[in-house]
């Protein structure tokens, strides 16, 4: 009857829309590459997080091993507290260090993990002890200028006695 054709047509339309959504989710967006599965949380304190944003990647050896879940300000230590969801498949030693790096020349900030040599692994809610803040351009420039200013000029020192 007519209603069966109607149901078929509407169902096909909805299915088409959902397939498009699936395509968008898996092929177009990062849902396909971001493994779901279980995660465990790690903490890290930074003096300066630079441009790090929530959802930023956490990489080790260039591979995404986690995501930044939340960034908070700790007003006891006056440092930034970064909460990370680590992929449960990967364990890192207790003396792993975390640096805030830039992806590419003008890219976004991400957290780079360099594993240490400890035999004990980081567990959920553990703190990454060694951290290096993001490079802030102004500090870099002022440091460069300071070095330049305090650098003993070779010609001047060799000239004077």
């Amino acid at each position, binding site marked *: 009857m007519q209603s069966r054709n109607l149901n078929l047509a509407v169902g096909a339309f909805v299915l088409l829309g959902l397939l498009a959504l699936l395509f968008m989710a898996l092929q177009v*967006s*990062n849902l396909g590459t971001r493994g779901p599965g279980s995660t465990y949380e790690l903490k890290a304190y930074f003096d300066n997080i630079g441009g790090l944003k*929530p959802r930023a990647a956490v990489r080790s050896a260039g591979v995404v091993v986690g995501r930044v879940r939340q960034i908070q300000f700790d007003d006891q230590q006056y440092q930034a507290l970064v909460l990370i969801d680590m992929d449960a498949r990967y364990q890192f030693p207790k003396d792993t260090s975390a640096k805030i790096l830039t992806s590419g020349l003008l890219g976004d900030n991400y957290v780079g993990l360099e594993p240490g040599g400890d035999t004990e692994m980081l567990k959920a809610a553990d703190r990454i002890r060694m951290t290096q803040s993001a490079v802030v351009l102004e500090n870099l420039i002022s440091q460069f200028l300071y070095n330049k200013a305090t650098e003993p000029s070779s010609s001047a020192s060799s000239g004077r006695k």
Partner: protein
Amino acid sequence: MAVLTAVAALGQACVKLVQDLGSFALLLLGILRRSAAIWRRPRLIAAQVHFLGNHSLAIIVVAGLFVGLVLGLQGYYTLRRYGSEEALGLLVALALVRELGPVISALLFAGRAGTSLTAEIGLMKAGEQLAALETMAVDPIARVLGPRFYGGLIAVPLLATLFSAVGVLGGWLVGVVLIGVDPGAFWSQMSGGVDFWDDVVNGVIKSLVFGVAVTQIALMQGYGARPTPEGVARATTLTVVVGSLAVLGLDFVLTALMFGEL
């Protein structure tokens, strides 16, 4: 003196705007209140999804394809200047998913399906069919307007998603197949840069809001049209004009809310 009449006209227009917003809200609330009764007749809603969605497929898919093709082309020419051609996939996908998909499909929907809705209901009103329903103790808001509202609500996000998907394929067609951008870079930069929740889902939410706005405006114009040929003609025009402006205005608001500060 002409200045005074102009000012008076402006004031009158503002008052009318507020009045229209009021009737918009009241009608929307009226439909929402009767939702239980409306959903007891799912076949009516399905018929409307067919009328509004299936019948708009052609224009949405074709438009999406063309928009994707153009995005691919224009995007390539611009990115080539900065040596960033490999980001073409990312550009096309983000532009479509965040903005062009929801907005253009809503505008097309207002023009194609919105006008059909307005004309149909306006003519039903002119032919006293709505009054006939009332005298038969059938609520025309629940029986006629409600299924069309939910039909539009379901159809628009699906159409927007289809638009974006076809657009991405269009961009791929131009960029990878025709021009020769590296397919690996095309897709990997895209999937690396497009976040499902922040971009795709936000785009779907946008299209949902647009769907409510356009469908409700179309219904309101038809239901309130003067039951004459001129009245119906004017109502259909208003559906497109008001609906399109509402979509663009809401787009600004939603974009500011969603993508303003990450």
